[in-house]
């Protein structure tokens, strides 16, 4: 029983424009012209389409064969005013929101009643404070319109279109996503949250996000949410590119809880300069298959990269996640902490790479992979790859696979805690080192979700 999704599909949403199924050059031109893009962006899209056609699907990860790429609407622009009302939302969904404590203001948006809630009212003052500091926080489409030079200089440079077939696909048909620019020495303060963004489209299938943190700046970006997200689209292929310039600090947190029919194939990478720090915090709870390996290219001396991730693989799910750290400069440091939980036949895979090139002397990396397997049907695999081309470096790797032991359960039960509560407590305890790094409200929701998932799971 997977109780976090007792909900079935959401209703059909009306769209103002829906492309025909399948992908061709005309469609790419149409997307670009509907968005009124500059010629150079159309060129990039068309080149990427060509790349996409030339490249082959990755076969080393999860099973992508069920995806019918001809059966996908590559461009969908939802109506700005949806016809649905809160009354139309099934009771079960409302109950789930209630149980995990989603704030009132966000429920309607999550249920698909509104593409966005009234952000002007709620976040108008935040927006003003940001613009006074010179922070730009827009949808990618708006960013391209208003700041074409900045976009042109950075777009597709950290993740070139030919990086992988899905990055090529995203580059050809991208829509939505965020554009964030933080000027020199500005500390953004409060986390920027993707769904506070103004005038956004619905979380798209092919989101494209570009974040530029100038020298000495500091910011935290949060995307997704831990409440179940409903999507009529079965393929999501996002690209996130981040520039962390000298002495800047960026944290990018994701809590992904897509419906369990979704293929979530994401490319995320940051370029980290001298004395700068990049930290990816990544929680994957939903989707049928997620393939995602947030990466840091440590290009400047003493640059630091971190990935903290949690994967939850329930019945019918495969979480194929991990991290990549590319050490290109001396004294660069990185840390990967990956935790996975597999349950009810779910499969969790860790796939990671540490690459230290000649000349990256004095670099250090630490990798910790912990897997918790909750029953006999479930599975966990670890595929670490280390490519070390420099002698004067330190690399540590720890991996553990554990089960919730009957002794642990008995110990907690003997204190008066039910077996269900005890399992949830052990699972939450296992996730704690990563969960404590995300904002409190997300952490509480994640813990509640685990409790929901564990309900009725212990005989």
């Amino acid at each position, binding site marked *: 029983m997977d109780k976090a999704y007792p909900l079935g599909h959401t209703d059909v949403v009306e769209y103002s424009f829906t492309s025909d199924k399948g992908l061709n050059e005309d469609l790419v031109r149409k997307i670009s012209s509907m968005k009124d893009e500059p010629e150079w962006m159309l060129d990039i899209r068309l080149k990427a389409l060509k790349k996409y056609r030339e490249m082959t699907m990755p076969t080393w990860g999860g099973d992508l064969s069920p995806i019918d790429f001809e059966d996908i609407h590559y461009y969908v622009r939802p109506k700005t005013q949806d016809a649905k009302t809160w009354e139309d939302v099934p009771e079960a969904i409302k109950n789930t929101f209630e149980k995990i404590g989603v704030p009132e203001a966000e429920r309607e948006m999550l249920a698909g009643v509104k593409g966005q809630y009234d952000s002007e009212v709620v976040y108008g003052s935040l927006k003003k404070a940001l613009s006074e500091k010179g922070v730009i926080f827009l949808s990618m489409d708006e960013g391209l319109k208003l700041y074409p030079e900045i976009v042109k200089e950075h777009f597709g440079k950290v993740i070139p279109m030919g990086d992988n077939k899905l990055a090529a696909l995203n580059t050809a048909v991208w829509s939505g996503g965020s554009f964030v620019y933080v000027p020199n020495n500005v500390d953004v303060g409060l986390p920027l949250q993707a769904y506070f963004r103004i005038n956004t489209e619905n979380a798209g299938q092919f989101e494209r996000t570009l974040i530029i943190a100038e020298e000495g700046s500091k910011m935290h970006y949060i995307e997704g949410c831990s409440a179940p997200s409903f999507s009529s689209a079965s393929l999501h292929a996002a690209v996130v590119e981040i520039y962390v310039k000298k002495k800047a600090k960026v944290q990018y947190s994701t809590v992904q809880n897509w419906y369990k029919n979704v293929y979530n194939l994401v490319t995320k990478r940051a370029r980290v300069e001298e004395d700068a720090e990049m930290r990816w915090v990544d929680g994957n709870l939903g989707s049928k298959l997620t393939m995602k390996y947030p990466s840091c290219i440590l290009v400047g001396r003493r640059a630091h990269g971190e990935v903290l991730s949690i994967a939850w693989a329930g019945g019918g799910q495969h979480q194929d996640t991990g991290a990549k750290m590319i050490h290109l400069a001396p004294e660069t440091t990185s840390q990967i902490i990956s935790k996975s939980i597999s349950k009810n036949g779910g499969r969790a895979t860790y796939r990671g790479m540490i690459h230290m090139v000649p000349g990256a002397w004095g670099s250090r990396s630490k990798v910790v992979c912990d897997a918790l397997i909750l029953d006999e049907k479930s599975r966990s695999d670890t595929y670490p790859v280390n490519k070390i081309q420099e002698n004067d470096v330190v690399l540590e790797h720890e991996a553990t696979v554990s089960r919730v*032991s*009957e*002794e*642990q359960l*008995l*110990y*907690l*039960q*003997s*204190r*008066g*805690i*039910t*077996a269900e*509560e005890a399992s949830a*407590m*052990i699972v*939450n*305890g*296992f*996730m*704690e*080192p990563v969960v404590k790094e995300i904002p409190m409200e997300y952490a509480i929701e994640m813990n509640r979700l685990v409790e929901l998932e564990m309900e009725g799971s212990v005989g």
Partner: protein
Amino acid sequence: MLKIKNLKVKIEDKEILKGIDLEIMQGEVLALMGPNGSGKSSLANAVIGNPKYEVIEGEIIIEGKNILEMKPEERAKLGIMMSFQYPLAIPGVTVREMLLTAMRGRGLTVSALDLKNQIALEGEKLHIDAMLLNRSLNEGFSGGEKKKFEILQMRILKPKLLILDEVDSGLDIDALALIATNVSEMVREIGMSVLVITHYQRLLKYLEPDRVVILKEGLVVDSGGKEIVDKLEKEGYKSYG
């Protein structure tokens, strides 16, 4: 308080307890002694409801209720608590979180802050390093720290029946005395009953039993007052041939 009648228990098809009769009164300290493998720990595990120990015959009665069909957590809520011989580590969970869940599970309204203060106070009395209260329960703790944390939990949960399973293993004399003092206090203050399982005599110097029961090969072979401990000291278990 606790009444055990003709209890037969097996583990993995091996009969360990072969018909035990035992009774503990309210506020009584009963020492259960016997050589290794005599069934002392099996008895304790059967009382707390460890599913690995299968009761094939007999009754375990707490305050008039037969608890054999109850889950371990239900028995705990009736007031049974065991201090484990080898307390388990629970990574990512502090003693506070665990006790808060346990208290609320008993239907008690407890504020997290009050509980925190109470735990800090009791921890101090047990000479527990305050830093340990913020760490994962029992993870990387020394043998002595683990046992002190068991007693700390007793202080908060205030059981009606405490089972001390080999609490003296791995403890120095100071810690042993401290634990014995804490347990004796609870006996005096709330009339807690105690089943002390040990095969050494030294614990009983600090925690004086009202009665002593000797187990051997799954059967009660002797019972009586403190004098039995002295007899054991001289003759060992051989006299029970």
